C-alpha cells in the first residue's frame, strides 16, 4: 500500500484511476492540472505520481521537469492518449526522457496499470 498522487484534467479518467488504485488498497490524492499537482506533491510527498501529459494550467511534462529538479528520486508513471490535442506530436517518449519510470498509453487495462505501479514502486 502506497500514497499515490493522480493528476489528470479529465474527471472521468481521474475517477477511474482513483477507483482502480483504491481497489488495490492504495491511498490516493488527486489534482486536476500540473500546477495543482506540483503543490500537492510538495505538501503531501506521495510515494508515486501518476500523471496525464496534455493538460491546461501547466502540462505534465513541465510538472515532471519542475518536480524532478526539486525531488531527484521522484517516482513517476506518465499516461497519455498519445498525440497532442491539435496534432500528431507524441508526448509519451518525452515523458520517459525527462524522468517518468513508466509510460502508459490510453486506453490502458487494470492489469497494465497494476504492473506499472508495482514496478515504479519497487
Amino acid at each position, binding site marked *: 500500500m502506497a500514497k499515490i498522487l493522480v493528476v489528470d484534467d479529465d474527471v472521468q479518467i481521474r475517477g*477511474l484511476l482513483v477507483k482502480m488504485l483504491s*481497489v488495490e488498497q492504495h491511498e490516493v490524492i488527486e489534482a486536476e492540472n500540473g500546477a495543482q499537482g506540483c503543490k500537492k506533491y510538495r505538501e503531501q510527498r506521495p510515494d508515486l505520481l501518476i500523471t496525464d501529459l496534455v493538460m491546461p494550467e501547466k502540462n505534465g511534462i513541465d510538472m515532471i521537469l519542475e518536480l524532478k529538479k526539486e525531488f531527484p528520486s521522484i517516482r513517476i508513471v506518465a499516461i497519455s492518449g498519445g*498525440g497532442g*490535442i491539435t496534432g500528431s506530436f*507524441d508526448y509519451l517518449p518525452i515523458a520517459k526522457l525527462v524522468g517518468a519510470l513508466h509510460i502508459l498509453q*490510453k*486506453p490502458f487495462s487494470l492489469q497494465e496499470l497494476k504492473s506499472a505501479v508495482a514496478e515504479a514502486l519497487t
Partner: protein
Amino acid sequence: MEELQEQPPAKNLRILVVDDDPFILQEIALHLIGDGYLVETAESAAQALKKMDVFHPEIVLTDWVMNGMDGLELCQVLRQRKNGQLLYIILLTSHDAEDSLVKAFAAGVDDYIPKPLTPRILLARVQAGARLVRLQIEVEQARREQAENARMAQQIQRAHKMQAIGKLTGGIAHNFNNHLAAILGYAELAREMFAGVGDGQLDEFLENIQQAGSEARDLVVSLRSFSSGDSSSCKMPLIGVMLDDIVRMLQPVMTASTVLKTNFGQEIPLVMVNQDQIYQMVMSLCINAREAMNGKGEICLHLRHVREVQASCTSCHEWLNDDFVELSVRDSGRGIDAETLQRVFDPFFSNKEVGRSTGLGLSVVHGIMHGCGGHILVDSEIGKGSHFHLLFPVIPLMADNAEANPAGVE
C-alpha cells in the same frame, strides 16, 4: 505574359515550301530566307509529308498542280494529320476562278497567292499568315500556362487537405483515447468488482462493452498511424528477408484463384520502417488488390532499388527527384479512375460496400510512408489494374552498421 514577349520574332517561324518546279522552289526559298524565315523545301507532296515530321513547320506554302499528289490533296492530308494543331497553309495557284478558290478553302487552305508570283505579294501574304500564327502561339501558350497554374493550385490545395486531415485525425485520436480509457477502464473495474452479480448477465454485458471498446481502440491506432506515421517506431530491418516472412503470412488471405508472384531484388539498401508497418501496408494493398480482382487474377510484389525517380507523389503531391527502395504491389484488377485516385488516401474513403471496410487501409499506408520519409506513386488504368509503388528513402552510409546489426534489433 512577359515570357511571351521573349518569343522569337515571327520571322523565325518555320516554313515548308512545296513545288515540283525546282527553279520556282529555289526562288521562293531564297526570298523567304532573305526575309528571316527558317525554310525547308520539298519537290513533291510525298517528300513534304516526310519532312513535316522532322521540320515541324508552322506554315506550309504549296503549289496546287504537281505530279503525283497535288497541293489540295496534300492540304487535306495535313489537316487530317495535324487535327486541330497549329498549321497555316498557303496555296500557290493560277486557278483563281471563284469555284476553284472555294474548293481550295473547303480543303483546308488558309490563304492563296495567285501565280505568276511577285516577291512583294509573296512576302506580304506570308507576313499576314505569320501574324496569325504568332497570335495563335501566344494564345496557346497562355492557355498552357493557365492550365499549369490551375494544376499547381490544385496540387497545393490537395497537399494542404492531406495535412489538415492528418492534424484533425491526430486530435480526434487523442480525445478518443481519453474517452475509451474511461469506457474500457470502468467496464473492466465493474467486471472485477461485481463478478457474479445478476446471474452473470452483468458480466456478459460488460464484456460486450469491452469488446466494442477494443475495436474502437484498434481503429484509433490506425487513425494515429495516419496522422503521425509513427516515425518513433522506425527500425532498420533488411527489407528483403522480412518480405519473405510476410508473403508466407499473406498466403492464407489469398483465394485459390489469386496468384501471388514475387520478385525481390538483391542488394537492396536499408530502409527505415519496422516489420509491423510493412506487414500492415502489404496486407492492406494485397487485400485491396484481391477485392479489385474479385478474387481472381495475379498480384505481383516487387522489391528493387530505383534510381533518380522523377515524379509527383500521388498522396502528398510533393515533386520527387531521388533514389528510393521501391516495394510495389501490382494487380490485374478493375483499376481506379483518375478522380477516385485523388481520394483513395483520405481517411474513411472506401469503394467497398459500407460495413465491409473501415476505409483506413490506404490512409494508413499514406501515414506510414510519409512518417518514415517515403512517398507513394500509383499507376492505374480502368480495366487493366493498379500498381502501387511504395518508395522508401535510402539511408546513406548505413551499410556498415547494418552488418553489425542485421535485423535492426535495438
